[in-house]
């Protein structure tokens, strides 16, 4: 308890309050200044001043306590300390991102289970005829990464402020800018991965989330874990309730009716008629071996039959979408995405590979073989088989964004 009648104590208390350094450091500085004041007072008394005047003169020679404390604080804010703090800040950011990712993943997955579970009960109780709902899986990944980035930012500002002996408010702007710029350079211009709209949005928003985490209100007391986000039990329960309700609402608005369901195989022959000619070649080794690179092979038995057919082609057509995922060829498609001539590999055996191009929007396709028969009509000889998916578009987020 500070004695309000003791000028020296008041002076030293004011200095201590203005230092805003870690408690152990501030305590030693105040102790040092207290010793100085004691020595100065003693010397001035020996020179003839009375005790009160000597003490006042000693404090006056040290100067204004606010100016003194600020000068001492600035003396501790060295460049070396700032660099060391930056290094620890990077580690703190990685730590925050790791735990933030885990926490968000666990929270979102758990609440999605509960929310969609409640939705199932609701559908059952109400006797609704539905085929399913959107599960929003890409959004879960995006939200996890954004929360991780935000928590990383929050950790970074706290650690950097504490270790550099600076106030969080004094460094929040440079930390947010530098951190967001560094993360943005990595996520938008450097990382080359399979891009899609959700992933690109995530990569562009990550530096924004980091900056938001840095800008969150931070404690003004250096020396503690300033601005650290702490979740209380009530806060966690509230978050669980909020997320569960959000999943429930999202599930409700994306319920899909059982009406208008596609019949399997209904659209198969929308492209070419099936041949009714005798001794039609049969397909062997037909199928989609890998995403984007189906290889098709057709065998003519007897091999001489090959001469009766011409312009044999392997074709990739847009796939029809259906509730059960198997709808054959898209009935509104007017032509194949890609086609390649079948080349005779050995007597009576023809083969072709389809190398589909990567596009920004992944295309679901079916592969088939067609050929012109002896009667001059193009027939469907094999397939459709699939659906397959066109190759992933690999590049940076910026390349994806700027590609037409």
């Amino acid at each position, binding site marked *: 308890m500070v004695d309000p009648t003791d000028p020296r104590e008041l002076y030293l208390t004011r200095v201590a309050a203005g230092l805003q350094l870690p408690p152990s450091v501030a305590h030693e500085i105040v102790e040092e200044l207290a*010793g100085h004041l004691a020595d100065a007072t003693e010397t001035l008394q020996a020179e003839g001043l009375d005790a009160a005047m000597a003490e006042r003169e000693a404090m006056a020679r040290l100067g204004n306590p606010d100016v003194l404390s600020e000068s001492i604080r600035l003396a501790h804010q060295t460049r070396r300390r700032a660099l060391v703090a930056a290094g620890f800040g990077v580690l703190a950011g990685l730590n925050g991102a790791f735990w933030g990712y885990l926490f968000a993943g666990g929270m979102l997955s758990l609440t999605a289970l509960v929310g969609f579970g409640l939705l199932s009960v609701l559908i059952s109780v109400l006797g609704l005829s539905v085929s399913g709902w959107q599960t929003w899986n890409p959004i879960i990944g995006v939200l996890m990464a954004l929360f991780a980035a935000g928590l990383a930012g929050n950790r970074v500002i706290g650690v950097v402020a504490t270790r550099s002996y600076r106030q969080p408010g004094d460094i929040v702007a440079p930390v947010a800018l530098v951190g967001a710029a560094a993360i943005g350079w990595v996520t938008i211009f450097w990382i080359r991965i399979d891009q899609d709209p959700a992933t690109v949005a995530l990569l562009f928003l990550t530096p924004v989330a980091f900056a938001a985490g840095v800008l969150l209100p931070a404690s003004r007391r250096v020396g503690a874990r300033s601005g650290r986000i702490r979740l209380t039990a009530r806060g966690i329960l509230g978050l669980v309730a909020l997320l569960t309700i959000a999943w429930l609402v999202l599930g409700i608005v994306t319920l899909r009716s059982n009406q208008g369901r596609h019949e399997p195989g209904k659209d198969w022959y929308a492209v070419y008629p099936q041949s009714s000619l005798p001794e039609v070649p049969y397909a062997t080794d037909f199928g989609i071996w890998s995403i984007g690179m189906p290889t098709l092979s057709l065998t003519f038995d007897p091999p001489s039959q090959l001469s009766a057919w011409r312009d044999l082609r392997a074709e990739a057509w847009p796939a029809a979408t259906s509730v059960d995922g198997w709808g054959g060829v898209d009935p509104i498609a007017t032509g194949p995405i890609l086609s390649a001539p079948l080349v005779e590999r050995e007597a009576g055996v023809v083969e072709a590979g389809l190398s589909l191009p990567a596009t920004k929007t992944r295309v679901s396709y079916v592969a088939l073989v067609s050929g012109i028969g002896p009667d001059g009509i193009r027939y469907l000889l094999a397939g459709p088989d699939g659906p397959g998916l066109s190759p992933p578009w690999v590049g940076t987020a910026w390349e994806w964004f700027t590609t037409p």
Partner: protein
Amino acid sequence: MRVDPQLLKGTTPLLVLTVIGDGELYGYEIAQRIRERSGGAFAPSEGSLYPALHRLEADGALVGTWRASERGPRRRYYGLTPKGHGLLAESRDQWTSFVRGVVKVAGRTGTSNG
């Protein structure tokens, strides 16, 4: 003659390093020693002494240790590190060059008018 305190600005680190170079001292002793060695001509503001001490310590030129004092509570004694010795020598050279330059321009040599 009393020296204008403005002239002392920037010299505090050199003065501090010089007196500490003779042996470890604590803050009040440093201020007293500077006053004595200047013959009472000047003394750096005590308010600028401790920021200078802490800055030199943070930069690695000084090392501070707490010791029991004869005069009562413990005191923080400061001593030069190898880096501090180097900084002292460099500061002395700079100051010497500076003073020579000032004397050449403003020293009492020749006539001042015409």
